[in-house]
């Protein structure tokens, strides 16, 4: 961008608004992080820095419960992310590399449908569906529900990546008598990889974060981290909840950073 446009494009107060936006977004998160290190059973009075609540999370009486919830969350997130990424990759190939076909617009709508239906409606519909066919609610019901709403999140970066790859490479490979399978494996897949990884990570985070749908379709005694946190928060915000929140916050930031770096690596290589 040239210098003059920067002058033209300047507006008074916009910089301040942007900083305000950052403060609004981060202040509550930073405050919870700070208070999670509070050395006091009362949550609002600051009594010095300590790891006592992290100790409570890992070694307190409820440690086993939170550990089980974490295992459930990770199991579901990994399986849902892998499945939805595979589905999204296949769909993206068909939608973007293939010829136009009848029902393409409908298919596009279908893939994005989980984004358009409000979460609470999806939750209700899935619960009623499982109940009406007598499907037992448990880890599997949560996993199935998660796969559905992870598909569009995995699809978007993969499709975006695929659109950016010129088909000239595949054509060259085909001209050299590579089979479609070989072309995909040796040429297209490596080029798509940054998009696939970033789609996988987004699906993973989305599954890990979900509360509303999980809360509706979970079975007896099956908790994921968000439902366990919600259950605890209903009785009041305790410092150990702030410690868990801070840990999840750190995990989210880590995953987003990785996803960001991967997509940047991918872009730089072109």
């Amino acid at each position: 961008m040239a210098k003059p446009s920067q002058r033209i494009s300047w507006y008074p107060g916009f910089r301040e608004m942007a900083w305000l936006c950052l403060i609004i977004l981060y202040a509550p998160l930073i405050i919870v992080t700070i208070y999670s290190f509070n050395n006091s059973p009362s949550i609002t009075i600051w009594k010095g820095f300590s790891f006592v609540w992290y100790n409570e999370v890992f070694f307190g009486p409820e440690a086993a419960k939170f550990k089980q919830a974490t295992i459930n969350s990770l199991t579901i997130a990994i399986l849902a992310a892998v499945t939805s990424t595979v589905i999204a990759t296949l769909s993206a190939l068909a939608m973007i590399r293939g010829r136009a076909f009848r029902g393409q617009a409908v298919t596009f709508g279908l893939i994005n449908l989980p984004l358009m239906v409000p979460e609470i409606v999806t939750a209700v519909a899935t619960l009623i569906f499982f109940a009406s066919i007598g499907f037992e609610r448990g880890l599997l019901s949560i996993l199935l529900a998660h796969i559905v709403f992870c598909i569009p999140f995995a699809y978007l970066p993969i499709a975006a990546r695929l659109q950016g790859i010129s088909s000239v490479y595949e054509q060259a490979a085909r001209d050299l008598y590579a089979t479609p399978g070989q072309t995909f494996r040796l040429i297209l897949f490596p080029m798509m990889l940054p998009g696939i990884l970033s789609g996988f990570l987004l699906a993973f985070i989305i599954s890990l974060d979900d509360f509303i749908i999980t809360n509706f379709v979970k079975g007896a005694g099956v908790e994921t981290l968000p439902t366990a946190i919600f259950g605890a928060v209903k009785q009041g915000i305790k410092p150990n909840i702030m410690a868990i929140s801070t840990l999840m916050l750190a995990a989210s930031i880590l995953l987003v950073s990785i996803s960001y770096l991967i997509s940047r690596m991918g872009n730089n290589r072109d």
Partner: protein
Amino acid sequence: MRKITMTLGAAALAMSFAQSAAAEKLTVYHWFEYIPQELLNEFTAETGIEVVMDTYDSNEALFANLKAGGLGSYDVAVPGDYMVKIMNDEGMLDTFSPSELKNFGNIMDQWVNVDFDMGRKSSIPYQWGSTSFMVDRNVYSGDIRTTDIIFNPPSELKGKINILDTAGETLAFASLHMGFPQCSNDRAQLKELSKMLETAKADWASFNSDGAKDVLASGDAAAGMIWNGFGAKARAERGSLEYSYPDQGYIVWMDNVVLLKDAPNRDAALKFMDFLLEPENAAAVTNYARYTAGVKGVEAYLDPELVTSPENNPPADAPAGTFIEVCAPETQALYDAIWTQLKK
């Protein structure tokens, strides 16, 4: 990379199978914050039975969730007295014979033949206590032994009142305030009750059961309906809170561990009941939840503070508490309508 994701997937699958392959299991549907985690861990250590627990925050939510497909996935639940009767009438409970529980004899005599489960065929006592309200004496120092505090509050408390989100208890408490019978068919009375609640609602801040202690202890509410033991815990966090035994009356209840119909682990459920009938374990629940056990021989294990706690010792001139009555279904439908009207 694909190898890595596949390995991850396989690992995850292995994890989930390892989990489902665990030994004996017991699924408990329980009130929130009503049993210490240490006690559950002890049960697992003693019997090798792994306990998973779901929680609810009102007798009505328990009933609705069991009816909507929850039956068959839980082994035991802990409904209040009137709800034991309703669940039994609906055929939601399994029965056992006293001989199946080796600690059956530990049940206090007055709690064996109770009208909601004569002879204890499906349930054992868990804890009993009362439902009333607490007031922050730093905010309001006037007379609090009246239900007006909740339903016709003084100006200091307006907009700072929390109500238990429990249809049965809150409506019964409102009936006590009005001096009406609990299962009235008198349309004028029901209309009056509904109108009184609608008016009072304007002065309430929130409907919250699981947060009932926290809103009082944190100062977000200055008065609130609460169960006596939960109130004792609130007072431990904020000394200016006082539990009231109002002159118009208050609710007493007994929560009971019931054996659910189609329980997937009936044997484990009976072992759990036996475990809870051990005086030491019943006392552990009491020391944690601060109510009163229905089991013989707990005294030696009780926290001495409980003996004198104001929440567990009504003043001498307080009226006796009232149990919640089970209304005929047509009448109950009217009370449900009042509750729906109030909540919307």
